[in-house]
């Protein structure tokens, strides 16, 4: 079966598709989150060195992954909207930014509350933590720039450009623990394998999947509101509002 992607690029078609998909993603997020919390808080054993405080990683690490992954996807949508001048790609980039900013904030907050009992301080100007803070400012900059213009298409273009420039920060975050002598420890989960105990790993992966599903649900719900705002003078939106 040949799939016509241009059919789904139409805001009216995508609006309906997103409306059907978002509840499924939210339900999956709730199920995976419940399983992840059970494994992380009940099943996983106490860490031999850190004690119970290590359980913060079950939200800190997935939130950090999502903060970077969402930024990457947002920049890709920005690049597509700049290259092909597609309305929906720009709307998706806008829809992803607040969720990405929220996960970046959660990563910084939880890292801070893990750092106090572990390192003895809530904050240190370490390369990993500072570059993650820069990521939060990039998200804020994207949101501010996208909304700074009266013509939303101009806002889309300016914000997309900022998102693409900000991509340089992602390898800096990821490799900061290797490039510099940081207080933040290196990765326990790599593409080549892991040094983590299996139940701890499962708890973390389940929470990461839950956050991923939540991000999909939230961005699809937000893009529906953006479509309504942008297309409010079209016939199909007028009809939709009356039903």
């Amino acid at each position, binding site marked *: 079966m040949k799939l016509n992607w241009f059919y789904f690029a139409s805001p009216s078609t995508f609006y309906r598709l997103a409306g059907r998909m978002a509840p499924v993603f939210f339900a999956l997020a709730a199920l995976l989150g419940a399983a992840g919390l059970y494994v992380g808080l009940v099943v996983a054993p106490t860490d031999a060195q850190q*004690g*119970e*405080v290590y*359980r*913060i990683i079950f*939200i*800190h690490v997935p*939130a950090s992954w999502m903060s970077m992954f969402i930024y990457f996807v947002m920049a890709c949508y920005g690049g597509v909207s700049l290259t092909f001048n597609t309305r929906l790609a720009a709307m998706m980039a806008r829809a992803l930014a*607040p*969720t990405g900013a*929220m996960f970046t*904030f*959660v990563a910084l*907050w*939880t890292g801070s*509350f*893990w750092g*106090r*009992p572990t390192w003895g301080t809530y904050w240190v100007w370490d390369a990993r933590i500072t570059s993650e803070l820069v990521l939060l400012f990039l998200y804020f900059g994207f949101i501010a720039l996208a909304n700074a213009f009266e013509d939303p298409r101009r806002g889309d273009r300016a914000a997309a450009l900022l998102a693409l420039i900000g991509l340089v920060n992602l390898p800096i975050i990821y490799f900061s623990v290797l490039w510099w002598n940081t207080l933040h420890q290196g990765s326990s989960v790599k593409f080549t394998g892991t040094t983590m105990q299996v139940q701890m790993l499962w708890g973390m992966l389940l929470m990461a999947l839950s956050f991923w599903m*939540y991000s999909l649900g*939230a961005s699809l*719900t*937000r893009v*529906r*509101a953006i479509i*309504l*705002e942008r297309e*409010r*003078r079209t016939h199909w*939106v*007028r009809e939709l*509002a*009356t039903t």
Partner: protein
Amino acid sequence: MKPHEFYIWMSYGMTALALAAELVALRLRRSRSLRRIEEERDLEAQD
């Protein structure tokens, strides 16, 4: 969770709060968009 329950629950609590705040914001944004469409349509109908 002792002796670090404060740090653990502050982390989980803030995450729950952030997720809940985003969900509320999403709902408000949608209802605001729909209200704006209705207002504009009513204004046009008056003209």
